[in-house]
């Protein structure tokens, strides 16, 4: 069997996904964060951003980073079906990344949210953008969500008042290893969208240009003394 034929057999079936329209959010600091879909050719900057956090156990950065690393690598090398990656960038420097997966026309599977820049609700904004993509743009009805850190549980399960479907295990289960599954339904999303999700569209050419080339963070608040 030819190698490229074998490769085709290894690749998952893909459904073409509607693109996520970029938006810009002015953070409390006054900095403008562009939220947009990452492109496959940007995988180097994404993986390079995540890699240092694999060694940070605080707030479960290690497990989130190592899993996101594999998700993005799998996305790049066509080993995950219908994954999308959104990135938040300030002047092109990556401030946070989210990963997620379109499972069926009605179901989304939220994977991970990784915040580099702390204290400005970057993670909260990116998670909201991910939910916006699932429910408002891809038109799904539900998104399965798990939390691997207390911060995540606080931000998603409690603040969004997610529906706890863990009693329905194993019929309802998130694909991240049996962690209790919570669900953002369309009605829950509509109840919180206005206070959780924001951003201005279209993004100006200037701001789009500023985020066109992604750069890895120069410093990490999670890693004191780190300099790139």
């Amino acid at each position, binding site marked *: 069997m030819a190698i490229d034929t074998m490769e085709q057999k290894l690749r998952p079936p893909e459904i073409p996904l509607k693109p996520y329209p970029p938006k810009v959010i002015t953070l*409390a600091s*006054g900095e403008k964060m562009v939220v947009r879909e990452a492109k496959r050719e940007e995988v180097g900057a994404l993986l390079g951003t995540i890699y240092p956090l694999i060694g940070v156990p605080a707030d479960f950065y290690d497990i989130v980073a190592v899993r996101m690393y594999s998700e993005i690598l799998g996305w790049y090398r066509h080993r995950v079906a219908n994954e999308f990656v959104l990135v938040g960038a300030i002047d092109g420097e990556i401030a946070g990344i989210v990963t997620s997966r379109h499972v069926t026309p009605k179901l989304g599977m939220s994977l991970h949210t990784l915040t580099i820049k702390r204290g*400005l609700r970057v993670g909260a*904004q990116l998670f909201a953008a991910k939910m916006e993509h699932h429910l408002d743009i891809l038109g799904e009805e539900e998104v399965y969500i798990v939390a691997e850190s207390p911060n995540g549980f*606080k931000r998603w399960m409690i603040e969004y008042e997610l529906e706890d479907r863990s009693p329905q295990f194993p019929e309802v289960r998130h694909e991240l290893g049996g962690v209790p599954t919570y669900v953002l339904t369309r009605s829950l999303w509509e109840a919180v969208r206005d*206070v959780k*999700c*924001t951003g*201005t569209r279209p993004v100006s050419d200037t701001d789009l240009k500023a985020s066109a080339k992604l750069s890895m963070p120069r410093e990490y608040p999670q890693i004191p003394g780190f300099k790139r």
Partner: protein
Amino acid sequence: MSRVGVVGIGHTKFGNLSQYDLGDVMAYAATDALKDAGFLERRKEIDQVIVGNMASGLFCHQSAVASSVISKMDMEPVPAELVENGPASGASAIKIGYMAVASGMADIVLVIGGEVMRKVTGWTGTEYVATMLHPEAEYNMGLTLPGFGGMFTRMYMEKYGLTERDLALLAVKNHANGAKNKYAHIQAECTIEAIADGPEANVVNTYVAEPLRMYSTCPVSDGAAALLLVNMDSPKAKLFSKKPVRIAGIASATDTHCVHNRKDPLKLEAVRIAAEKAYAMAGLSPKDISFAELHDAFSILELAISEEVGFFERGKSFLAVRKGETAIDGRLPINTSGGLKSKGHPVGATGTSQAVELVRQLRGEAEQGRQVADPKYGMAVNFGGFGNNVVAMIFAKD
């Protein structure tokens, strides 16, 4: 009474120190203060240690923290006691230390205030802090301090015309100061466009307890601050490397535990009375004060306290903020440290931290860009409960 001065100050960075033991955090600040005074090696000559802490039993499941600090600092057999007065524990500890020195019972007293709150979640911490409210009439009804802050803000808005944008202006001012303070929890500026005027402000600066938003509410912080007090009239005053900053006035007052028992909930009587006593003790009036640290656990409190201590007419303080009068280069800078909003609010540490800021400013040791020009008198108000136990302090550069 003997004159009492501060000859040493110490401070940890405020923030998330939850991986550390509370005693270690306090010992760090205390060691910093002793080094500042040039007295670390002679620490066993200290007559008394007073520790201010609000709720180590709840936050850290730890009691007898004064003994813990003494042991960590190898200071036995120096006597040490704990003072608990809610979020005013720090300033109350200073007041007790002052009384010990002024009365002649002690010549050298080390005061430490500290709290580690982030070993528990923010919600659990908020619930623990709420235990200082009236147990039947308030706490059991589900009230929290942010809830009180929200209701107080709403009343003030309706009575005086304050807007949410005015609160955001306070955050912008205080974050500008805190961004330059090496001890501040949140060392970042914020802009009025981002947190009030811009299209995304409603989400970026989300509600915590309407009308209070995230940028009108202090963060939950860990940290400690310490001061070394000395009898300025004793020969021992010459043992230290730093010239004393004199405590010119210090006083406290109480108000009803139940806020609804007050004739006018917008009047913070304990603040007014504590401040009046402190002014009388110092022989000063509000117009003599060069700068102030006011307990802005919620931004509204900076305004209300600034009125009660006589800086502004009732209901007019926010107009002064609009004009920049309380900014670092204004006629009366308020919360030069960044205040509780930006510097942080480890409850038991706040009063001692405010006092440390008074000393830094009066010595001219604040960072560039937030040093008040030639200050003579600094005032601090440390606010316990919802205004039911308040301490006012005035420090002087002689």
